[in-house]
């Protein structure tokens, strides 16, 4: 830009290629959906799989969003994040079972109240657990990645064993609340009610999170902190305190994701969080470290890809997301929408 333009403040428009490049990750989701439509001959099957993929993606997003901010803000790699998923699932499912009369009643209102109470309990429990986890396990190893990996994996193992002690070593099977069972028919496709609820919850949470990050001061601090934590402190903000808030919120969201995933699978196990961490890490990496938007798009891509490939070529389903990870990283080595600078 010229000196005169610098002084006068002439608005510089980004070149078209740059603007398209920014938009490209957002376009990937509709592109994948259209590729799915072309590859799957039956429209009703495609619709069912798409809703299923979106529901799965939303749940993974809920579990992963806190982790990406935790990494972005304080450069902390928390392999123990899966513990919050498992504990959230067990707490939520225990409460749902205790509220059997409400969940078994053919009343949507009663079912939703029971679900809300279960989610609230799971989020409260995992928030408290997240606070303790940060204080006892994460805080002593700030800035030391290898130690972070070792102690957070250790924390995960301890929590899984504690779950076995409290709830027993067996998996717990459950049924969804009465009104969330079954499916509705749309355009000849059977769409599971619970999956539609999961899509709605995920969408509301994403919009709420975006609003908080863009419209509130704490959101501004978090976004700025992910980009340059040192400068945020130099402005006068206590980043450690903000980090604890984000860690606790991320743990609570993982707890919520755990309840939702448990209801989706209709079974909960102590190791479910650990198993989910593979998908969660894929989403965080392809989304770009520290980016909630990238995490959201990445989660949808993973959910859709898994469902489409499982239908078209079941043997490839397990490695489809690894393939997605490889392709995305070859295209954008720092993920689709990285916020954190390469370290």
């Amino acid at each position, binding site marked *: *830009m010229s*000196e005169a333009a*610098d*002084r006068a403040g002439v608005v510089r428009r980004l070149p078209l290629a740059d603007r398209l490049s920014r938009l490209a990750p957002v376009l990937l989701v509709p592109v994948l959906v259209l590729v799915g439509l072309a590859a799957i001959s039956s429209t009703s099957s495609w619709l069912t799989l798409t809703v299923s993929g979106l529901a799965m993606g939303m749940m993974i997003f809920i579990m992963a969003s806190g982790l990406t901010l935790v990494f972005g803000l304080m450069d902390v790699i928390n392999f123990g994040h899966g513990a919050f998923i498992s504990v959230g699932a067990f707490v939520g499912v225990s409460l749902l079972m205790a509220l059997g009369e409400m969940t078994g009643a053919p009343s949507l209102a009663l079912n939703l109240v029971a679900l809300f109470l279960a989610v609230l309990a799971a989020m409260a429990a995992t928030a408290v657990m997240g606070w303790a986890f940060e204080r006892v396990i994460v805080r002593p190893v700030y800035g030391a990645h290898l130690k972070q990996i070792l102690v957070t994996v250790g924390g995960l193992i301890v929590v899984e064993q504690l779950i076995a002690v409290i709830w027993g070593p067996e998996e717990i099977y459950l049924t969804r609340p009465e009104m969330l069972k079954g499916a509705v028919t749309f355009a000849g496709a059977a769409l599971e009610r619970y999956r539609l609820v999961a899509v709605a919850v995920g969408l509301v949470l994403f919009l709420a999170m975006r609003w908080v990050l863009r419209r509130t001061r704490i959101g501004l601090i978090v*976004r*700025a902190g992910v980009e340059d934590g040192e400068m945020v402190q130099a402005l*006068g903000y206590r*980043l450690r305190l903000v980090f604890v808030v984000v860690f606790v919120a991320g743990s609570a969201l993982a707890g919520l994701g755990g309840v939702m995933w448990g209801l989706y699978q209709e079974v909960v196990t102590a190791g479910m969080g650990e198993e989910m961490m593979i998908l969660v890490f894929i989403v965080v990496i392809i989304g770009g470290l520290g980016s909630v938007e990238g995490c959201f798009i990445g989660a949808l891509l993973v959910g859709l890809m898994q469902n489409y490939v499982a239908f078209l070529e079941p043997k490839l389903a397990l490695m489809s997301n690894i393939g997605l990870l490889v392709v995305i990283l070859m295209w954008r080595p720092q993920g689709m929408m990285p916020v954190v600078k390469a370290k």
Partner: protein
Amino acid sequence: MPEPILSLSGVCTDIAQYRILHGVDLEVARGGVTMLLGRNGVGKTTTLRTIMGHWRARAGTIRLHGRDIIAAPTAAIARAGVGYVPEGMGIFSDLTVEENMVLAAVSGPLDRMRLERIFEAFPPLRTFWRSPAGTLSGGQKQMLSIARAMAEERRLYLIDEPTKGLAPAIVSTMAAALRNLKRQGASILMVEQNFAVARALGDTAAVMDDGRVVWTGAMADLAGDTALQERLMGLRMEGA
């Protein structure tokens, strides 16, 4: 003589296994502008970062308003009234210009009068108010960086090479803004390689070499003595 707003005594700082500052002694007078000069790599930026608490001093004392801040967290140092403009500008490129400024007003909403004064000094910031800071040019980013430090009343400004890499016309805009800040009675400690700017703004100068302050005195004395400049910094300063 009034107590200095900032004083460093015997400050030593290590980065990894290397000692970068070997006992820095420095004072910034209340309402004065002290220029921190010296060759590249002598510890000027490290001195500012140590004052801000980004790097911890191993030894010595750093007093701000007479209070030792050597162990204070960075946020507490900033809240004690220190505005910091780092060498890399520290702009949040993902945030808009407005969001950068809102964030800089730590104690509450942005003061409209103050903001108008900032717009007068740096007109592009008004134009780009809603644009992502990452789309600004280098000069505009530097304007934002200084404007952000001015978003609230500060008692001391630490400014690291504000004119580095800027076109001459932008340098004069920057110098005018800093001169205005000085007129308002701000105390400033500034690292500057552009000697014309340093001479125009500085009341006193401190020259560093090998992690120590090796000369302090009036800026006018240094500006008028080319032999001294050559001895301290190895070259005659441009614009001297």
